């Protein structure tokens, strides 16, 4: 569905804007998780076909005419693993933020100026 694709792109742009302009470290990670959600929405919406059902065989869906009745299973499978990885990476980033706070005592990105140019 195209409208959901557009929604996913809007979420990506909002998240990127947040990551670029906000100064607080937690806000940047929140922007990252918004980008994550947007990407997942786009990938799942690319596999949708109008008027079809989920790829699970039961009494209503036989294996013979499945080709004309189910949506694409591959994007679902890819997103399934991507969500779990997203959680793990978010947790790792948060732990880094906690360590940075312990080292320097600040949560503002403009206080970290070792690599500033």
């Amino acid at each position, binding site marked *: *569905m195209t*409208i*959901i694709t557009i*929604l996913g792109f*809007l*979420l990506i742009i*909002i*998240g990127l*804007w*947040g990551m670029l302009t*906000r100064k*607080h470290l*937690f*806000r940047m*990670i*929140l*922007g990252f*998780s*918004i980008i994550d*959600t947007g990407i*997942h*929405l786009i990938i*799942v*919406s690319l*596999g*949708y076909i109008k008027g*079809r*059902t*989920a790829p*699970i065989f039961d009494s209503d869906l036989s294996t013979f005419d499945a080709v004309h009745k189910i*949506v694409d299973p591959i*994007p*679902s499978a890819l*997103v*399934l693993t991507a*969500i*779990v990885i*997203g*959680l793990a990476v*978010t*947790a790792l980033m*948060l*732990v880094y*933020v*906690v360590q940075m*706070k*312990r080292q320097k*005592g600040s*949560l503002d990105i403009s206080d970290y100026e070792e690599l500033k140019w």
Partner: protein
Amino acid sequence: MILTIIIVLGILMLVAAFLALYLKDLLSAIIAAGAISLMASVIYIILAAPDVAMTEAAIGSGLTTIVFLYALHLVKKEQGEKND
């Protein structure tokens, strides 16, 4: 009908994304970011992907929020009584 649901959910998601970036209170911002995932899981049901919907509802709005809250707790404990 389904198009209306999708449009309403989409507008709510965009509003929640802006709230997550611009609310003053960090706790409310984290809750808003969890709400985005919750609405996304409803959209996955509409897109006929129940597996993804289950995962997103459990991870995106459950565990991610909990991990954020634990990290916020740790950071605030470092800070002492000063508030932010």
